[in-house]
């Protein structure tokens, strides 16, 4: 039996979650914007200082530059930022570890505000998913709406787990909360269905826990991986531009409108290795999704593989991610091209989740959505 009261609590929790994510997104956005302001102030200050020094002592420019970078290690945000700009050409070091760290503990910065809100929202998000499960007395992933709410909850938990200790990763908040919010809004407007019991095809099988559970994990990891891979591509482009400009300018401008954001993110090579680790896990999860799906298909339909559209697309996802892993180890494909393949894999994940579920008719179309 469906517990309608719990189901309503679940809906309410998810609506409030969405509101909190919106607020958190504003916080993360404000944090990125303020850092760009600080950054450009610092650049201006550095330029003025150098010009003043050049006028005063044209002969000791080198010493002045040495002084600037020498005081940065534990220094004020200004000098750290100046170093960030000065070193931008050599990249690698642009990871100004979260401007917030320089601020005294206990001060409410935009980022800390956003992070606290995100944590609260994630707790509520999980509560919404769990109450839905309790209301229906089953796993909360029997239709598109539940799959979306559950997998985004996993994405958020993974993000919090990654960034609770590595505070510099919190700067990525915008890029994680943004897509999650988008999916939740889609789920809340287009995919929402009332809490209901399972159709026969989903009953009597423990594979619903295993197969779909792993699929949710795989999807969540693919989302995270795609976020990191696209940032890696942007960062690589940014670093190239900065290197080119550094050859001709003393104080290179950022590349494009997001340059100041990219300055705050880890270097493209560390993003690349993070992306690889996430995608390796995702690939293993997709492999398990295929295997467990095949076992369930054999129990339910009497064959382990039948080229159902969902099976075809999961196979395509698997092959593209396999190509990514190979590309990463192949000369000429490493780096940006491999990241492109990872993103192609993510496009297949999206297609598999949206078009295959709604437009193409197959055996995986359950309960309306």
């Amino acid at each position, binding site marked *: 039996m*469906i517990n*309608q009261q719990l189901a309503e609590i679940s809906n309410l929790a998810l609506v409030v979650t969405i509101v909190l994510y919106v607020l958190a997104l504003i916080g993360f956005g404000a944090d990125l914007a303020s850092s760009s302001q600080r950054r450009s102030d610092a650049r201006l200050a550095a330029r003025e200082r150098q010009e003043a020094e050049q006028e005063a002592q044209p002969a000791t420019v080198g010493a002045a530059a040495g002084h600037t970078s020498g005081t940065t290690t534990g220094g004020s945000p200004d000098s750290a930022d100046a170093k960030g700009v000065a070193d931008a050409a050599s990249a690698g070091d642009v990871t100004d570890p979260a401007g917030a760290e320089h601020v005294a503990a206990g001060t409410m910065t935009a980022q800390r505000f956003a992070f606290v809100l995100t944590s609260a929202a994630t707790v509520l998000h999980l509560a919404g998913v769990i109450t839905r499960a309790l209301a229906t007395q089953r796993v909360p992933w029997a239709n598109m709406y539940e799959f979306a709410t559950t997998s985004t909850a996993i994405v958020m938990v993974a993000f919090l787990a990654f960034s609770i200790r590595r505070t510099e990763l919190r700067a990525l908040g915008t890029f994680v909360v943004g897509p999650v919010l988008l999916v939740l809004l889609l789920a809340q407007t287009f995919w929402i269905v*009332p*809490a*209901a*019991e399972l*159709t*026969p*095809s*989903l*009953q*009597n*099988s423990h*594979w619903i826990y295993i197969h779909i559970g792993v699929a949710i994990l795989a999807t969540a990891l693919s989302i995270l991986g795609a976020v990191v891979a696209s940032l890696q591509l942007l960062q690589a482009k940014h670093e190239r531009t900065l290197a080119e400009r550094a050859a001709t300018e003393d104080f290179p401008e950022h590349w494009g409108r997001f340059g100041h954001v990219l300055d705050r993110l880890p270097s493209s090579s560390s993003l690349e*290795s993070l992306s*690889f*680790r996430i995608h*390796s896990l995702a*690939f*293993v999860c997709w*492999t*398990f999704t*295929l*295997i467990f799906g*095949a*076992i369930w298909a*054999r*129990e*339910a*339909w*009497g*064959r*382990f*593989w*039948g*080229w*159902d*559209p969902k099976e*075809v*697309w999961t*196979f*395509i996802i698997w*092959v*593209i991610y*396999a*190509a990514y*892993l*190979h*590309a*990463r*180890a*192949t*000369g*000429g494909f490493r780096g940006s091209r491999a990241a492109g*393949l990872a993103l192609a894999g993510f496009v*297949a994940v999206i297609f598999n989740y949206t078009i*295959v579920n709604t437009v*193409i008719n197959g055996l995986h179309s359950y*309960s*309306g959505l």
Partner: protein
Amino acid sequence: MSERTTSQDPREKSAEPGAGAESGRWSSKPEVDGARAAVPSLGLRGTLLFLWRQLTSMQTALVLLMLLAVAAIPGSLYPQRSVNPALTEQFLDENGRWGEILDALGFFEVFSSPWFSAIYLLLFISLIGCIVPRVGVHLKQLRAKPPRTPSRLTRFTGYTRVELPGEQADALIESARRSLRRSRYRTEVREERNGRSVSAERGLLRETGNLLFHIALVGVLVCVAGGSLTSYRGQVTVIEGDGFSNSLTQYDSFEAGAWFDESDMPDFRFTLEDFRATYVEPGESGKVGEPRSFEADVQVSTPGQEDESRTVQVNKPLHVPGASMYLLGNGYAPEITVTDPEGTVVAEGPLITVPMGDVGYTSQVVLKAPDAQPEQTAVVGFFLPTGTIDEQGPRSLYPDAVDPQLALTVYQGDLGLDSGVPQNAYEVDLTTLTAVPGEDGDPVLIRLYPGEEYELADGTTVSFDGLRRYAAFDIAHNPFERGILVSALVAVGGLILSLFVPRRRLWVRVREADGTAVLEVAGLARSDDPALETDVKALASRLAGAHDGNRPPDAASSGHPAADADGGHREGSAQ
């Protein structure tokens, strides 16, 4: 995966820092370089060798993988004969010439089309061509000692140099070796000029896993091929109260591989005693009429065993030795009796009706009575479990038999059964038939409730005597299923090893000069290995600390060399 490149493409080596010590083993493939450089003067053998090298190169594998992904897409966008033949025919009818072109190109049988097969076969040939030499190399590596310690360690990861006055070089080396061995490194102590060194290596399991993964994929392919040659699968429809015994004649449709032998079919029989279905009732949560459960009670008898009662459900198939039976469909079988104008009973008993796919289970009735006199007769119409007839025509509102009724029209004429063309029992060609008119001259739509009988103007009678349900089962067997599952699990095991076991080298060198021992430690990551640097430094400080006496030996336990992906080996390491 990275190992595949390393063995394949010697140019790759230069990208890895400090590969010098090893490069001799991994990349010296003169024949590869030779073939590439000397393309113009190759003979037939050389050309073949060149093509083989190209096929087994990583770039080719990449291209083939992407091609495979792209080639699979039309298989999900166009209806596939093997998945849904009816939909395929419909698509062909609707798209005329375009459909024919697509059909000729194999777009409705993508996964058995020549181009799709070509891609995956080339991919697997490429894979085998890549794996076989690597297995040899890897076996050699497994037996080989860790490579010589490089003469200059300074350019390697985490290089640490500590001067320890008054330390014994031999003791340091020994404790380094012991510590590394406990962390599951293969170690080799080497005498050098004015010193000794330990060269250690771990993570060969990474390449083992990688090879295992690829070999197991070949295993999956072989088992799938074996399965498609030997497996069989058939559909049966059984009405409540009726029985089934496993022989070819009993199947509605049957497919089997080329090597399938009919005598292999297991001997079993069953009777469908009861079929139950429940649906979402009005007032319950969910969409009204959506199914909630299907259950088929069967009495099964297998040779040499007592009969047993079993319930087959969706997701709960019936397994008998040598075959499995899956509940995949159901419907209604109204009992209809037809007598012709001469009073002869020309049709009697339950008739399988075909659900049209709506929520209410509106089902098509086609009853053929070729023996009717004076003309052959067909009764065509609908069975409605909860029926209504309104401006949309006869239809059912709810799938359960709440208000069962039949809406029928009787036709007479030539059923076309003598033409020799096989006919579908559930379809009838109405062009050669005419509807029996009523008194007003229009065709009569007969509406019957259970127990009722209707007599047409010409004396034909139709009666609705009772209602039964039927269940549709698939019976299938694939002797290679177990092999596929085992291969797939081995593959995923190998995959996990190949992705998450870090492969690395570590070197510890101690030189003695003027009573001072100079300790050098450095490492080389041969895969993604972010923990290497901290591990190297931790080892260095522990070695220095343990012999210095300044540090308690267990202070460095947090940064132990074994603290990497497979942390399971942590226990028993040097503390």
